[in-house]
Structures are given as C-alpha cells and as structure tokens.
C-alpha cells in the first residue's frame, strides 16, 4: 500500500525512540559521573595539557577524549558537566511547569479579573528579551546553581501559562465540565479532577521542551561566565574555554558542543514526538 | 459535431476502489447535458476528469476524452492543461469561495486571456467589460476594480459566469452552479447561464442533483449511480417515462415546483439495492474492476 501516513508515523516513532535513547544514555552517564568518570574533573596535569582524543595520533590512553589546556580530562568534565545540565533541566523544568501551569489553569478556568491580571503580566513578560533578562537576574541574585534555576522559572513560566490558559479555557467550555458542576462538584475540585487530567498531555509536552531550553540557558549562562563558580565543569564553560583555544585543541570545544547539541535536539524532538502522539488531545 | 466526447472513462482512488465505471457520453455544440445522481454518484468527478482537476488521490485508469476533436489524454501534461484552459471552462458551485479574496476582479477575468491565449491586456479588459455587461452587471468599471468581498453572492456568480465565457470556450462545466445561492437569485442565474450558452453556442455539461432544474435548461441527461451510467436519454422522453427504475424513483423524489407542498417520496430501499446489484454485476464483468 502506498500510504504516506505509515511512513510518517514510522519516522515519528524512530524519532521518539532515538531521542529517548540518547537522553537515557546521557542522563544515566551524568547520574553516575562520580563513579564512572576516569579522573577528577578538576585535577590539573600541566604536563599532559592539550592531549588529543584517542583516535588522533599522539593520544594518551589515560585520557580517552583528550585534555584541555590545563591538562584536565575532557571526558570526566563532560560527564560532570552533564550532571549539572540534567539537574538544572529536571528541577527548573518541573518548577517552571508547576508555576506556569497553575497560573494558566487559574486564568483559563476562573476568567474574570484573575485572567485579566495574569494575561497582563504575561504581556509584560513577553516584552523582555529572555536571554538579557536571565543574565540580568543572575547578576542580581549572584551566580550559582540555584540562581540559574530561579532565573529559568522566573522567565519561562509564561510558556506554560499561555498555552495552558488557552487549553483550560477550551476545556472549561465543554459539556463534561458543566455536568460535573451540576453534579455538585466544587470549583477547585472540578479544576483538579476534571480539567487538569485533560490538560496534562500538553503540560508534559511543554515540560519536555522546557527541559531542552533549561539545558541551553544553563549553557549560555555558563558561557558568559555567570553560572556556577568557575571550578565546576559545565558544558557552557567548556565551550567558552574551547572557543579561545580552538585552533590548538579543537576537541575541547567540539566534544562538549556535540553533547550539548544532541541533548538539546533530543529534548526538543522528544517533545515534538510526544505532541504528535497526543495529537487528538492537543488539537 | 460533438465538442466533448468521453469514451469508457474510469477513475479510481489510487490503490483503492473505482469512482467512475466506464462512463461514455457526448455533448454537441449548443447542447446542454445534465449529469444527475445522488451525492457520491460520481457526477462531479466526470467534470473534474475532463477539466484535469481530479483530486490528487484519484486517477484516470482507462478511457479517452476528446475535447473539440482532440484526444486530451494523448497530450503532454502541459499541453493538455493549456488546451483545457483555452477550450473549456468551469462555473463553480460556490461563488463565495471561487474568487481569490486578495485579487481584484478584473485580472481574475482577464488572466486566462492574457496568459494562456496571449491577448493584449487592453483588449482583454475591453472584453471583460463587455462580458460583465452581458451578464447584466450595471457598473462594470467599478466592479472590475473591486475585491470579491465587496460584492454580493449573486454578483460574484455573474462574474464567474462572465469569466467562464471569456475565452469563447467550446465546453463549459457547471458544477451545481446555483446550490449555494439564495432561492430568489437561483432562477435569474439559471436563466442567465441558459441564455449565455444559447447565444455563444457552447456545449454545457450541467452537474446537478435537482431534476427540476434539469427540466428547465437541459436537452439530454445522464443518470449515474455509483459511478455507473444507468440511463442516458432525451430530457423530454425522460420526464414522460424514465427508462430505469432508479431514474423513476429519483424523479418521484424530486419536489415539484408547481406544488412544493406535495409530500416527497424517498428513493425506496429496494430500488437502491437493485442499483447496487447492477454496480456489483458490472464490476464482476469488467476485466479489471
């Protein structure tokens, strides 16, 4: 049969599995970093600076992915950097989802002045350049893991609030909500029991996308040197260092960049794949 | 001489079932042929096949189409398209959606003349102005400068009729041209189409489900069921004595214009079952159905 849809679905399925596979692999490796990393990511070995990765001539088998200009092991740094990236993705993503979805549900379900206030706030928020806003916040509250997480929550809650508000509005107009109310359910209880489950697939999709965004924000902030204290290895920090010495030791830039690229791509593709899966609910 | 001749035309969904089953028909110059049937009978599909606008999922599986003596399916895709543009035209069903909302009226009438037939723009515009007068539009110059949303549905259908006649086509396919219109406007439009067709001597393929309309403007008719021709006859003979039980039932189900209160007789199930059996029998006898 020449059915185009079959091919599309297969491709979508492959996309879903590939992304989930990479995220499991990278997430697992990051989680186990302290045990599987061959070296201390901070240990310097000035006699073994800028060693190339294993497939290049002159490599040292003790450093499979080479070393940076201070002789620190690139593999160990990528693993430990991944630990921070995934930690930020998980905590910031979940917290953003909870805050944004709650505000969106309230605005969409209760309407009236609650909606006006929250929508106005969203409009104001959308007028800020997000990267600049996050950098500004970090400058104000000072660098650190928690600062990054707070910055992401403060900036990105609107992503959830906007979409969830519209969904909740649509669901609120449905008959089943009216009949639940007639059956004597309270407002809050209707919101939690009837509407939330219907909006949940959307929230899950947005959460997956948000985790990818969190990873990139963390990388950007550590790139401009506002992330964690400089001695913790981060992908963004490694990229910033690698950029300055790219002509002498390209691997210091390229390898963490590949890790970052694939992780961001995987989160995004996973989110899009899930969106297609949930299609009937989302449209 | 016949301006349109269709021979054993079959159309099928790609990788699926047939939509038309070896349809043959002929329309002579100045003649109006009605294509009648319930929805899904394949009556619009014939017009679409002739005009080369079948949906992507459908394709012609056998048969031939001659337009003004030329075998369309033997031509290359580009040549066929241009030949159809020069010699045939469509009067669409819904005038509200058949004009491009972001373009003015004038180019929508003249573009075929200028681009396909190579007319000079000024000559094409003069022609458009004459045609708008011919379809009884009072202020052609203003209308030509207008956008579709500034005009009424009846006006737009008049424009589409004018546009269809612009290139003096041999054949016009009218696909239920009045169903989307107000009842009061329907009659005027119908009369306009008939007058224009008679004056220009065009062959007209008139797709409709309304036998009342058929009696007013058509000379011959083809009754279809399931993409199969059940009956092809003269209109006067048909209304006197339909030649097929299904046609008779269809006629009985048509509301009478002189007595709209008369109760309708839906097509009996037994007649439908018989028609279905006929289609099934055709598929069994066809070499590749």
């Amino acid at each position, binding site marked *: 049969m020449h059915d185009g849809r079959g091919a599309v679905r297969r491709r979508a399925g492959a996309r879903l599995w590939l992304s989930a596979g990479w995220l499991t692999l990278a997430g697992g490796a990051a989680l186990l970093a302290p045990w599987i990393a061959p070296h201390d990511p901070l240990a310097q070995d000035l006699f073994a600076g800028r060693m190339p990765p294993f497939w290049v001539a002159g490599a040292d088998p003790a450093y499979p992915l080479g070393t940076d200009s201070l002789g620190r092991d690139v593999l160990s740094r990528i693993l430990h950097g991944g630990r921070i990236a995934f930690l930020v993705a998980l905590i910031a993503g979940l917290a953003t989802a909870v805050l944004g979805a709650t505000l969106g549900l309230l605005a969409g379900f209760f309407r009236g002045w609650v909606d006006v206030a929250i929508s106005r706030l969203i409009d104001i928020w959308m007028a800020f*350049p997000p990267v600049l806003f996050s950098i500004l916040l970090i400058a104000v509250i000072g660098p650190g893991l928690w600062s990054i997480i707070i910055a992401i929550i403060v900036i990105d809650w609107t992503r959830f609030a906007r979409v969830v508000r519209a969904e909740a509005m649509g669901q609120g107009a449905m008959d089943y909500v009216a009949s639940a109310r007639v059956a004597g359910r309270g407002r809050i209880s209707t919101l939690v029991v009837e509407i939330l489950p219907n909006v949940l697939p959307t929230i899950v999709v947005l959460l997956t996308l948000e985790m990818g965004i969190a990873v990139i924000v963390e990388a950007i902030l550590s790139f401009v040197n506002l992330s964690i204290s400089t001695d913790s290895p981060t992908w963004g920090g490694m990229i910033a260092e690698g950029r300055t010495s790219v002509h002498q030791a390209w691997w210091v830039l390229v390898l963490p960049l590949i890790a970052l690229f694939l992780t961001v791509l995987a989160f995004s593709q996973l989110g899009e794949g899930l969106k297609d899966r949930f299609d009937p609910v989302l449209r | 001489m016949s301006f349109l001749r269709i021979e054993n035309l079959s159309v099928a969904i790609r990788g699926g079932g047939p939509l038309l089953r070896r349809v043959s028909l002929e329309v002579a110059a100045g003649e109006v042929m009605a294509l009648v049937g319930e929805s899904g009978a394949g009556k619009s599909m014939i017009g679409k096949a002739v005009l080369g606008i079948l949906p992507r999922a459908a394709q012609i599986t056998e048969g031939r189409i001659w337009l003004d003596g030329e075998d369309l399916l033997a031509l290359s895709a580009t040549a066929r398209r241009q030949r159809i543009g020069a010699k045939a035209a469509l009067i669409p069903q819904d005038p509200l959606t058949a004009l491009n909302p972001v373009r003015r009226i004038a180019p929508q009438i003249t*573009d075929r003349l200028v681009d396909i037939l190579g007319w000079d723009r000024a000559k094409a515009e003069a022609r458009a102005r004459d045609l708008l007068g011919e379809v009884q539009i009072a202020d052609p110059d203003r209308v030509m400068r207008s*956008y579709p949303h500034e005009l009424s549905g009846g006006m737009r259908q008049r424009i589409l009729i004018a546009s269809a006649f612009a290139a003096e086509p041999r054949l016009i396919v009218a696909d239920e041209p009045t169903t989307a219109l107000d009842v009061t406007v329907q009659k005027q439009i119908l009369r306009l189409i008939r007058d224009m067709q008679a004056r220009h001597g065009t062959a007209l393929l008139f797709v409709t489900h309304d036998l009342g309309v058929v009696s007013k403007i058509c000379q011959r008719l083809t009754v279809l069921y399931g993409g199969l021709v059940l009956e092809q006859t003269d209109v006067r003979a048909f209304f006197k004595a339909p030649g097929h039980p299904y046609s008779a039932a269809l006629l009985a189900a048509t509301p009478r214009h002189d007595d709209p209160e008369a109760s309708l007789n839906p097509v009996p199930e037994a007649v439908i079952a018989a028609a279905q059996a006929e289609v099934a029998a055709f598929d069994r006898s066809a070499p590749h159905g």
Partner: protein
Amino acid sequence: MLRQVLLRLVTTLVTLFGVAVIVFVVIRVVPGNPVAMMLPPGAGPEDMARLQALYGLDKSIPKQFVIWLGGVVQGDFGTSITTRQPVAGLVLGRLPATLELSVMALVIAVVWGGIVALVGTRFRGGRAEAAIDVGNGIALSVPDFLWGLVLILLFGVLWPVFHISGRVSPSLDLPFVTNFYLFESVIRLRFDLWWDIVGHMLMPALALAFPLAAIVAQLLKQSLKETMHLDYVTLARTKGYGETRVILREALRNAVLPTLTLVGVQFTFLIGGTVIVERLFSYEGLGNMAIDAVINRDLPLIQGIVILFAVIFTAVNLIVDLLYAVLNPRLRHA
C-alpha cells in the same frame, strides 16, 4: 480603525511602563553595591555617600523612579556608571548595529524559509517534502546560540572563509557619519566596505536566521497546502495554469497572511537572541553591550538597554499588525 490603533498604543504604553517598573525594582534590590566597586581602595564612607548622591542612589526607590521617569520623558536616560557618558547616546550608538544584524537575519530567514516552503509545496507528498520536514525539525530544535557555535567551527575554523569576530575589519578606514554601516556603505557606493561588513555579519545573521527560517518554512508550507485545496485555486487550474504559477499567484498571498502574525512574534525572539549571538561573535551591538553592563553592574545602562529592547519588541508587534491590515483587502476597507 483609528480607535483600534489608539487602543493598541495605550496598551503598548502600559506594557512598557510595566517593563520599566520591573527593571527598576529588580535592579535596585541588587545585594552588591555598584558604587562601592567604583571607589578607589581607601575611600571613606563619606566618599561613598557623595557618589551615591551623584547617581541619585541615596533616595527611596519610588522617588528614584519618579526622577528617572521625569528624565526619560525629556530623553535623558541617566549616566552610565562605568563610562560616565549619557546612556541615551551610548545605547543609540549601538542600536544601528543590532538593527542591521536583526533585519539581515530576518531577510535571510524569510527568503530562505519562503523558498523552502514553496519548493515543499510544489513537490508535496514526495521525498523532497519529507527531507524538508526533517531539516526543518532539526533547524527548529536547535537555538541560535548552538547554530552560532556550529558556524564558527565550520566557517571560522575548518574552512575559514568568513569573519567570526567583530563588525568590520579594524584595519579599514571608515568614512561613515552614522552607525548604520551596512546601509551607509551602499549609499556611499563603497562596495569594498560593504563586502567586508557583510563578511562579518553573515555568520551571526545566519545563526539567528536558522530557527526563524525553519518556522517560516513550516508555517508557510502548511498554510500553502491548505490554500491549495480552495475553490479559487482549483478554478485557476482549469484556466490552464501550471502548478508553480498557481502556487505563486493564487495561493501565496493568501497563505502569507496567517503566517505573518506568527513570524512577527518570532522576529521578537530573534531580536532577543542577538544578545548572546553578538557576544558569541564579538559583534559590537546592543546585546554585547548589555552583557558587559550586567557584568559591570552598570545600572542606568542596563535599564536603558532593557527598555530599548522592550520598545523594539512592542514596535515590531505594532508594525506586524499594520502590515496585516495593509495586505488584507478585507481589513483595508473596513
């Protein structure tokens, strides 16, 4: 129509006021004291107080806001703490660089995305469309920051054909009187300079353009495909037009309208992206200046830049709405 425009202007002003209040408050709860960093070692508390008074930082926050707003109305955005120059002048001096970069990226994105959408529609249902969808998906998923790094690697290191740092080669003698280098070099017919500037801008512009091009391609293609099923498109086919001509003349303009509004919003995201992309390519625009200002805790400068970005964002939205009205004849006569 006039009432709607006025209403839009009022809500825009409310939004900008909200932005100003938030920035003002956020900046002033900074735990670190920016004035302390400016003082030479050994300065006493009275020096500190004097300096704070100089920048008006000794008053209460609401009072500071009123004073600042009064200045803004007269075009005075205060004085930068690090450079001791008026903020308005500094910011407006950098604005042209960022505008030129953003507009160049927008043009690339729209042209590229538009061509991809047209090709995808022309050959819809085939391998070409499938390949386009996959490419779009990847371009969309990866943000401008990462595209910038990839471009640096490809065209700055592996195959160094473009400049990956700065706005113009420092060795060149610039005759310009405005800061719109790209624009002015064309006006002055100095194509040697123009070429050098383009060579510097192309990489950051491409990094910014990639995600937007994918969005344009995706939205426009979907919109075109929907339009291709409409009656007036079918009617045009019966007139003898080929597929390409039908797409370009009958479908395109109608399909552009729904795409336009979304592209407007996405363009503001692109402008927001200039902050990090300018940093990445050491491009001397507003964004790069903003990061320096944040690192140096230059409060008046940060304030000025954020407000200017907010003004640009809201202006873009306003322009998009007006464009929509101009392109849609149904609204033009309403």
